[in-house]
């Protein structure tokens, strides 16, 4: 049996985990090392750390954080946020990350995806795609992608969802697969932060069209949402941050629920 993966995400800023933390039984709820250990104990299949530090100083603390998190972690660790060059990737991979996630830089300099894949193998590179659904009636924006196919379309956005790129998400996903991406971390900007469920339509459109795994992200609010994104969205893995920050949704209880719903998971 091949398991669907459950991946908690630590959003880190200046060496601390941010985003609605409500843990008990932790000495320091914002410490990435402690949270990583807890998720590992609960049965997380992997861990993703995204650095959202805006400042140069914040970025500098990232290496130390990665080292601390990786030290006692024996499941795969992906690190992203501000990875722009092969050198950035090299530094993270030699510090303890198993994979690096590249988002904005992949759009601006696609060669970096190829370079990382060639130097470290495609398993080491995850391309993060932030996508926003294009409204049918949206006209007047000449830069919006107009792909020649039926059905809904999504546009790739960069810089944390602030900059539209004019790229069609499905075409971009195909392109990064060719460039050497080992996996795609797909975030719906429409559902992210809503806790109303993953965008299953977006996820299945991308996941079914590709031969590399797709990690769905954005919108997890209940255990049922995970069932939907695996069954209807054809996701290979699902990532979430805030839902695991409440003790009502431990990774263990989520996996138990998924198993009872017929979703293959590692317990």
């Amino acid at each position, binding site marked *: *049996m091949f*398991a669907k993966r459950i991946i908690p995400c630590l959003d880190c800023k200046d060496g601390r985990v941010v985003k609605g933390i409500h843990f008990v039984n932790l000495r320091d709820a914002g410490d990435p090392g402690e949270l990583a250990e807890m998720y590992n104990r609960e049965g997380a299949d992997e861990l993703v750390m995204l650095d959202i530090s805006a400042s140069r100083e914040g970025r500098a603390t990232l290496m130390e954080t990665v080292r601390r998190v990786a030290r006692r972690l*024996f499941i*795969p660790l992906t690190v992203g946020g501000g990875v722009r060059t092969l050198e950035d990737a090299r530094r993270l991979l030699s510090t*303890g990350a*198993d994979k690096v996630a590249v988002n904005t830089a992949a759009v601006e300099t696609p060669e970096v995806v190829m370079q990382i894949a060639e130097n*470290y193998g495609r398993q080491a590179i995850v391309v993060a795609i932030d996508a926003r659904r294009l409204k049918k009636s949206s006209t007047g924006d000449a830069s919006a992608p107009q792909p020649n196919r039926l059905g809904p379309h999504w546009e790739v956005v960069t810089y944390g969802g602030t900059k539209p790129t004019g790229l069609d998400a499905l075409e971009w996903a195909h392109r990064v697969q060719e460039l050497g991406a*080992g996996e795609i971390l797909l975030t719906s900007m429409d559902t992210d932060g809503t806790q109303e469920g993953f965008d299953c339509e977006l996820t299945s459109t991308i996941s079914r069209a590709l031969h*590399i*795994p797709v990690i769905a992200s954005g919108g997890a609010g209940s255990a049922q949402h995970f069932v939907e994104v695996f069954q209807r969205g054809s996701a290979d893995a699902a990532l979430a941050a805030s839902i695991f920050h409440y003790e009502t949704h431990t990774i263990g209880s989520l996996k138990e629920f998924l198993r009872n719903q017929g979703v293959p998971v590692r317990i």
Partner: protein
Amino acid sequence: MIAVLDYGGGNVGSVLKAIEYLGKSAQKADQPADLGSAEKIIFPGQGHFGAMMKGLEERKLLSPLREAFAAGKPFLGICLGLQALYESSEEAPGVAGLGILPGSVARFQGIFKVPHIGWSQLELRSENQLFHGVPEGSFVYFCHSYYGPVRQEACAVTEYGQTFSAGIQKENLWAVQFHPEKSGEVGLRVLSNFLNI
């Protein structure tokens, strides 16, 4: 001393870290002499079959490796380090592998996604000290596009579209296709079993 073979492409750091966590000491080995003095050898591979064989050759590690095999030194290949034991690989036509096992490493075909990234179950075929204390059906972490065909030396197999070798033993050589250093408690158990051989 346990030598963790570094041919310039494997994930040596995380294997060293796991061994250290298990309370043993290990060293990165990238010189021929490092292998001669080692008591055990771990060979973590990653990336491309052709680049791996080239890396071993350029560092002049091939003959000390064969000498270690001949001397019966315990050896554990990981991921590409398992595939290296076969005669060849579809990933690099014309490049010779170590040839300990007959046959060629093949690429996954069919409707399953490639690479095979994630947790799959082990089916234990025979009692083996490498898997001592590992329950049947345990999940371990895989990350590969090519696989070693099942031979009689396979003591564990896994199903992903087809059945492939997940664990191999031939005399004092062991190899696993999954990453024990990334497979949580089960993986640490496998590593510790090897360290205690």
